[in-house]
């Protein structure tokens, strides 16, 4: 299973590497199959990341202690 920490970009990069490796045929059949399975897991993972994430628009506000607070963002009209 893909690690949950994997970013979308890392997953995609791994996927490309795997595809290349299998295409070049430098690895053995068993390894190819294992890589293919890993690749398909990554494909599923990437799709999941894209489908699960939804657009969130929020507003940052600096607190007194210098930390940032996330609050809902309401679009304002130009004054």
């Amino acid at each position, binding site marked *: 299973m893909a690690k949950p920490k994997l970013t979308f970009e890392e997953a*995609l990069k791994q996927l490309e590497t795997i595809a290349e490796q299998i295409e070049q045929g430098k690895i053995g059949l068993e390894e190819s*199959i294992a890589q293919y399975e890993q690749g*398909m897991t990554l494909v599923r993972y990437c799709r999941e990341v*894209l489908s*699960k994430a*939804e657009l969130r628009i929020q507003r*940052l506000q600096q607190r007194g202690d210098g930390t*940032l607070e996330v609050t809902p963002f309401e679009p304002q009209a130009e004054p």
Partner: protein
Amino acid sequence: MRKPFDPSLVPDPTPTAALPSGPLSVSQLTAIIKRAIETTLPATVHVLGELSNLKRHSSGHLYFTLKDRSSELACVMWRSEAAKMKFTPADGMEVIATGTVEVFERAGRYQLYARKIEPRGVGSLELAFRQLCEKLAQEGLFDAGRKKPLPAYPNRVVLVTSPTGAAVTDMLRTLTRRFPCLGVLVYPVRVQGDGAAAEIAAAIRNVNRCAESLGGVDVMIVGRGGGSVEDLWAFNEEVVARAIFASRIPIISAVGHEVDVTIADLVADVRAATPTAAAELAVPVLEDVLAGLAILEGRLRRAAVGQTALAGARLGGVVARGPFREPLAVVRRREQFLDELADRPGRALRVRMQAVRRRVEALEAVVQRIAPHAYLLRSAVRLRDAEHRLRRAVERLLERMRQGAAAAQQRLRTASPATLLPRWGERLTRHEGAMLAAVRHAHSLLRERVQLKEEVLSALSYKSVLGRGFSITRLKRGRAVVRSLAQIHDHDRTLTEVADGEFEAEVLNLRQLELFE
């Protein structure tokens, strides 16, 4: 306090009547001069001259002299005013200083208290821009090598901009349209006026500092919509430039329109012509990403299928030509070897048994010739029995070996020949040894028996047949048994033995037996 300049208020240049008749104290004179200057000159004057003796005191106040070909004017600019100056003044620069002339009574000096200095010929902002550009370029803030690449698939984007206005709306609309699986954080700042630059710089630093707690920020867009040069000025400030340069998070600048280029644009990792363009640069189009993913998946599938097919073809090749085509060939070779092995002792045995048989047959011939005793007959039968049993024993042994071979063959079919064959060979060797030992034993037994019979036969000797009418003739001299006419001559004396004794005789009429072939 002071009124605008009004020429009518300028007093008569020769007001001597008010002066006391005696000598004036320094303070009195200075006061008169001060009043004269202050009442004569307008509150604000603009003086054109060349900057010289420029000194910035540690307090922040700026001291300098304005001069032309024949005169000099001492000037001071207080810290609060000096800090607002966009460009950096330098000796030799021709400027217009704006301020008030006042008398500094304690030193008996008059000087210009400048509130503003403008470079002559070029706008102050433009000069400031050029100066800062030069400085930051020298420090390497614009170096292409220092620019960070933008992430291809950002998860979270921070917009440092005004929360109102077209810029933020454009950016949000574009981001939403292209990549609707994105976290967008708007960091509201003032984007023009005093303090705007400091706010923008602080925002950039804060986002960098708190990126972790926000769950990671992949890219920042810093910008605003279009406006005048003054409106955009905050993005030309050094503090903003430095904050952008120090940012770990890649920054896209998006200030004003296409034609507006600010220092922030030059320092930023990527400059976008407009806020909308910045949003386009920041995120990919989701449909494209999904399409790319599908292509990648297809590549992966095809490659894996290709690999498998290739491996299948190779396997086919191996099977077609290797021992896999005839999986039993190995076993058969072994079987053949086993047969040879079985034959070898068999052959030896057969040779020996033939020899034994020949001797037995010879004995039988003798026995028949000399009318064998019943015991001899029994012995011969037993000999044959022994031979038969021996043969059967050997056959059983061979059968067992064949069964073992069949079992091994069975195991070979299911297990790897490579691991089984050595073990099997070992067993074969063991069988061979056992069989040879058995054969040797059987043979020695047989030989013993044959010997025994021979002994018995010789012990019984010829005497048993003498009773049946046979006799033995020996030469009288030397007592050699007469087997041939060659041994005797006429009138030789012989002794002839019969069952119950012997008698002497004389040889007469030697007659050669007719030989027939």
